[in-house]
């Protein structure tokens, strides 16, 4: 296979053979390549977990921070240099558990970043505890009698928060996942792509087969500008629906609200402070 711009060459990938993450990695690299994004102009921020290792396998700029904290880091990266394409990536535990507060507030803030959540419905790196999205009844060494909480419905919550772009994909479907990622990255504003991802080692319930049987795409005629329809589909549908649920292009982007960019777009690292203004400010304290 021809080496693409985001391919790393010979590296040791720490995922299990057969893991759904491989499909996501390929779709992601494919999407970025087709979009013509340049590796030096892209940053992927991530947390900690199996999913959060993804940026190490993409030839680009990487900010691999703390479990649960990719979104605030990504938000700030974009704010410091709006010329970069910024993706935050992580698992369901990372983004909805530890990072839950950032998730909901980032949606409100609406930075122009893409948030990719590998949803394997389990904490994989820590060897198989329940995650916020684990199904009721899912048994683990910690949830010995099975999960009792209702799974976190990220799509419904995002729609409730009037997020600007909300989609779900399935790691087993390369083409459509790539396509959804492309749309999300191209979208201006906070874009959520939750990708259903089989974990072959710790989730023996939600397998490739299970996902195939329990998911379906929105029909072509579905209109993602209808918030109620999106909510209905997120909460009521028999199968987990795939594709773009909701797009709301009217929200102002976080970066646009920031003082440094009112008049110019230069990234912060290129700016130097204006000494005259500073001494003016200091002198203002001499006056009444």
């Amino acid at each position, binding site marked *: 296979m021809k080496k693409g711009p985001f391919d790393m060459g010979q590296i040791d990938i720490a995922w299990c053979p057969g893991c759904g993450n491989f499909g996501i990695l390929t779709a992601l690299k494919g999407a970025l390549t087709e979009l013509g994004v340049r590796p030096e102009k892209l940053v992927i921020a991530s947390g900690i977990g199996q999913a959060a290792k993804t940026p190490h396998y993409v030839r680009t700029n990487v900010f*691999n921070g703390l479990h649960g904290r990719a979104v605030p880091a990504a938000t700030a990266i974009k704010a*410091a240099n709006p010329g970069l394409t910024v993706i935050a990536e992580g698992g369901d535990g990372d983004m909805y558990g530890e990072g839950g507060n950032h998730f909901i507030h980032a949606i409100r803030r609406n930075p122009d970043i893409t948030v990719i959540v590998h949803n394997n419905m389990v904490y994989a790196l820590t060897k198989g505890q329940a995650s916020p999205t684990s199904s009721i009844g899912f048994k683990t060494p910690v949830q010995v009698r099975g999960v009792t909480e209702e799974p976190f419905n990220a799509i419904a919550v995002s729609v409730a928060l009037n997020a600007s772009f909300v989609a779900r994909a399935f790691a087993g479907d390369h083409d459509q996942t790539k396509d959804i990622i492309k749309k999300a990255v191209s979208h201006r504003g906070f874009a959520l792509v939750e990708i259903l991802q089989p974990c072959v080692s710790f989730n023996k319930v939600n397998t490739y087969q299970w996902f195939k049987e329990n998911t379906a795409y929105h029909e072509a005629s579905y209109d993602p500008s209808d918030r109620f329809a999106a909510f209905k589909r997120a909460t009521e549908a028999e199968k987990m629906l795939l594709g773009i649920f909701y797009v709301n292009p009217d929200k102002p982007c976080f970066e646009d609200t920031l003082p440094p960019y009112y008049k110019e777009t230069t990234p912060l690292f290129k700016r130097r402070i204006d000494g005259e203004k500073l001494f003016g400010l*200091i002198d203002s304290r001499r006056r009444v």
Partner: protein
Amino acid sequence: MSHSSVEKKDDVSVVLCGEAGQGIQTVEQILTKVLKFSGYNIFGTKEYMSRVRGGSNSTQIRVSSRRVSSPVDRIDILIPFDRKALEHVGRRIHEDTVIIGEMKELFPDGDDKAFNCIDIHYSDIASDVGGAIYINTVATGVIAGLFSVDRRQFDDMIETFFTGSSQSIIDKNKEAGGRGYDAARTLVDAGRIGVDVTAHPDVAGEILMNGADAVGIGAIAGGCNFVASYPMSPSTAVLVFLAAHADEFGIVVEQAEDEIAAMNMTLGAWYAGARAMVTTSGGGFALMEEAVGLAGMLESPVVIHLAQRPGPATGLPTRTEQGDLQLALYSGHGEFPRIIMAPGSLEDAVHLSHRAFNAADKFQVPVFILTDQYLMDSYYNIPSVGISDTGAIHCFIETDESYKRYVLSENGVSPRGIPGFGTGLVSVDSDEHDEEGHITEDLDLRVAMADKRLAKMTEMEKDALPPELIGKDDYSVLIVGWGSTYHVIKEALTMMNRDDVSFLHFKQVYPLHPLTADYLKKARSVVVIEGNATGQFANLIKLRTGYDVHHRILKYNGLQYTVEEVTDRLSEVIE
């Protein structure tokens, strides 16, 4: 008592005391400015409860012929806004204290005999003008009049202060101020009260600000263009300062959903080329600690303004303490270097905040600016901030394709690239990593990386700011202090007037300057004065120099030391 005149003093301590919501802050803001503008040296500090209305708060304004920058116990003139005030500052009222108050309000039963009082009918005047809300402006006028502030200037000041309010409100405030002013002039003319503070024309043009302003100015000078924080007293003032100047200086000011987000944003911002800081306090900072460890591992620069207040937990949210030194020193899991500055003065606050950004960028470590509520909220006049050019030193490089973020280097510092600047890729990683910034489980590399990170200490120590020695070189008693106690200990030293006692002040508390031990060993007796219950700085000295100080003077009731208190407590431990 009835001798209601005041000794002619050239250093007058005025204390205003009343409920939150009674407008003492307005009085303070107007008076400090207008008095300074009249050429008086001024110092203003306040103590207040964690509530928006009610309770009992007080502000001290010292008006003096010479520079003053520290609180005194002494009250020369007390303006009590209610009866509770007499209780609240009761201990500090002495026989020469003149109480300029409304007698029927303060002593409804006429029990004013124990005090030296002057009656002013604030509330009558105020209601004449338009209502009780003008009482504070009347009081402002009384003080202005007492110090013979130029009437026109005073009017202008009120006008400026109330800019944005309706003309009728401005006019009423002017009237209220004027009525208070006139009342005071009448008293002065009648010889019932008088002060003898000399005005200096130069002082009129000096800089007046508080610690929060000073940290904010220093940060801007250091090139700060990004601040993410979550409100928390007393650190919020710096956030507010930067927000006020965000448009002018192009600063991203983000109020995050919590402190964890704030700190992780700040690290993301540095990564992408911003010069970023957080401003926080106690429990808010505790929440940032995981990310302090992340800064340690990423070798990310970061500036942390930590404004101390008494803990544990919520503690006393609006009070002061020097209780978070150890917290800063050992914050974050794992082992990595850091720098801790602790400004003693407004000039320090500007200078160190400025320096913090450069040091963070140079060494790629977290740099703390450790202040406290006292410093944040204290105002005085200074001739200059002491920085002549901005000198924000940017240490990042333009990368090429061979760029590796964590190249092993002798002194521990690897050139820092910025994503999007150059053709290289910049990978930073919270796991132990290789030179390229990718996860590694090579345990020899782990050791090399840990050593690299810790190696920075060597140059950081060389670069440490030396402590400042106040007093003679051949001391027999050495007083040691750090951070915000600078001026109060200095004034106490002057008061004590002993040439065998000197004062060593640390503005950088970590790493300690290499000469520290030499200073200590020269003394017959060393006394550490600090604002906490366990002697955290004395502990640090012991740990780093092996030197066990002789005396620890500690205070942890939530208030700053006063000059008298320092002298008293010193006299208990030094013969």
